[in-house]
């Protein structure tokens, strides 16, 4: 075990994390938040979601599912971004590859942490998934493939640390393929529900993969810049060049997402398709308009896209602002996608009396704490990684 660790952990070289006082404080705060989140999660499992969460019979999925989707979207995206460099050989992407692989593990583990509290009997899953395997269930495929994905990504990371690049590339490719398959299945979890007009159709899996790529670019810029700023490291020319390339790829993905979103909205309004129209209008002019226009459109698309274009991906401070806006915006996108898709009740459009036009959902303190715990856990993982792996510096870059 010690030998294995010694082989993985770099003993010298790379970048040394600075300011142990600051580091310990940050770690302490994040650990505290993680523990708080876990405590809220455990309490909600014991007391029951009926009493602790804002979810209901009509809106069974809440902010925890949104946070889970956010984490796995980011993880898949980081995997895609990392593979651009060392699987497909675009050298500009090499300097960020190690950190991206590490963070893809951190984000998916945080995602699993959050969903463990959303699934009310997660302990039944390991056995149930095997003896009750349902091959028509997208959730089953997603869970199983993400399990394999985590395994591949961990092996890939170990191989990267051990400088076994051939093996790393192989496992990276395996991770990429299972990640994309798993993630499109997550899209299909929503997209293949015939009764939910806002989600139904091939759009979801396609959109999920594209927004994963966008999230991956945004996330790696975000975390890399934080790591460098917090530790007072100086970016190498290679890293700067890499940031620029990632930012440009991110901008391209944002353009595609803007294009997708435009047509999603237009097709949801034209001809008032029942069930879909009500949902789209909730986003455009209804109770989720602020989320949509400010959160999704401004923070998630327009601001980061405009910033990257204006500075041509070269100004690190500007890139950080773009990435921060992007991260927040992407979270709002996931939240809206999950929640708004459930708001139109089953028997809408039948002329019912005393029947809600739209359902409502608001997260409770328990739910916020679990999500915050997941975010903090991801941050904890990230900070530890920077210190232990000395800034994830690739030797051959």
């Amino acid at each position, binding site marked *: 075990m010690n030998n294995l660790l010694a082989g993985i952990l770099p003993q010298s070289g790379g970048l040394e994390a600075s300011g142990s006082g600051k580091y310990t404080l940050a770690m302490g705060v994040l650990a505290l938040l993680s523990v708080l989140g876990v405590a809220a999660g455990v309490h909600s499992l014991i007391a*029951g*979601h*009926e*009493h602790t969460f804002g*979810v209901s*019979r*009509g809106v*069974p*999925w809440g902010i925890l599912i949104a946070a889970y989707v956010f984490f796995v979207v980011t993880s898949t995206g980081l995997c895609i971004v990392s593979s651009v460099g060392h699987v497909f050989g675009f050298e500009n992407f090499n300097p960020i590859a190690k950190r991206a692989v590490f963070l893809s593990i951190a984000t998916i583990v945080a995602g699993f942490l959050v969903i463990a509290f*959303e*699934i*009310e*009997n*997660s302990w*039944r*899953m390991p056995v*149930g*998934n095997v*003896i*009750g*395997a*349902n091959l*028509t*269930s*997208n*959730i*089953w495929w997603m*869970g199983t493939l993400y399990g394999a994905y985590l395994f591949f990504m961990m092996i890939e990371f170990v191989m990267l640390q051990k400088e076994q690049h051939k093996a790393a590339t192989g496992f990276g490719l395996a991770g990429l393929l299972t990640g994309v398959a798993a993630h499109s299945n997550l899209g299909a*979890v929503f997209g*293949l*529900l*015939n*009764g*939910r*007009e806002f989600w139904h159709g091939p759009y979801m899996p396609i959109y999920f993969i594209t927004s994963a790529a966008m999230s991956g670019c945004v996330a790696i810029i975000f975390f890399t810049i934080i790591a460098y700023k917090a530790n007072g490291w100086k970016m190498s020319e290679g890293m700067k060049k890499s940031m620029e390339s990632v930012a440009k790829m991110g901008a391209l993905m944002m353009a595609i997402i803007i294009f997708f979103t435009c047509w999603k909205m237009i097709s949801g309004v034209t001809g008032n*398709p*029942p*069930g879909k129209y009500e949902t789209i209008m909730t986003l455009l002019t209804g109770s989720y308009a602020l989320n949509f226009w400010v959160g999704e459109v401004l923070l998630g698309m327009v601001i980061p896209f405009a910033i990257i274009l204006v500075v041509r991906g070269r100004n690190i401070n500007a890139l950080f602002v773009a990435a921060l806006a992007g991260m927040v915006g992407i979270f709002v996108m996931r939240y809206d996608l999950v929640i708004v898709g*459930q708001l139109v*009740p*089953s*028997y809408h*459009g*039948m*002329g*019912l*009396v*005393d*029947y809600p036009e739209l359902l409502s959902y608001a997260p409770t303190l328990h739910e916020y704490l679990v999500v915050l715990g997941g975010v903090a856990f991801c941050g904890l993982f990230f900070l530890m990684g920077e210190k232990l792996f000395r800034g994830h510096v690739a030797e051959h870059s």
Partner: protein
Amino acid sequence: MKIDDLEKTTSEDLGVLPSVVRRNILKLGLVVTGMYLGGSILSLTSVRNVYGAGVVPEVGKYPYNPHYSMVIREKLCIDCEQCKEACVKTNHVPAYGFRTTILEKRRSLGGEKFETTFMPVLCNHCNRPPCVRVCPTTATWKDEKTGIVTMNPGRCIGCKTCMTACPYNARYFKEETRAVDKCDFCFESRLSKGQTTTACVEACPADVRVFGNLADPKSRVFKLVHAPETMIWVLRPETGAIPNIYYINS
């Protein structure tokens, strides 16, 4: 005016309209609201019409035997909710949940007048149940013998995907069993113990709910569903789930 005088006057209610007119108005209403044979105006897709098939399967083409199903004689429902109470008692349904409930439709009759129709809803025990497809652990399945969509609470992981997949809002999470709960046509509480009908059917004072084996030509559900000149509809046919709760007005 005394009763005797009143009896001489002609009634002004809908009874004086020729039945053809009444039927046409009713059909128009159902077509518009998208409930009649898949709907053709408001309904997103009109799958049943497209393929030329009705909502009722061909005789002899029922996939199960007994093929349990329920016919709801909707017009007769008076929302006394004795069915709900019986269900709660029989199946230990908690206060925050329900396995069956009554919805209320309103149709304008012109002016300030309107007509109320109560619409009982429950699990449709679909032939192609979306909830069964999405369950990762097969905690819910369609019973091969009876066609009843059943739950195994011990297998349920609580992911609630079946709840989002169900087009009929027929499922809820029951904290007491830590599993999703739903109507099982009283299989566990009554049918498996030799009784022949569900608690809601037994409780209904207006004979709204008729339960039985659709594959048996002698059963009342068979006779109702295959009666001549009867309009039969199902809820949300556009989802392709092929429900087994039939609604009629006669």
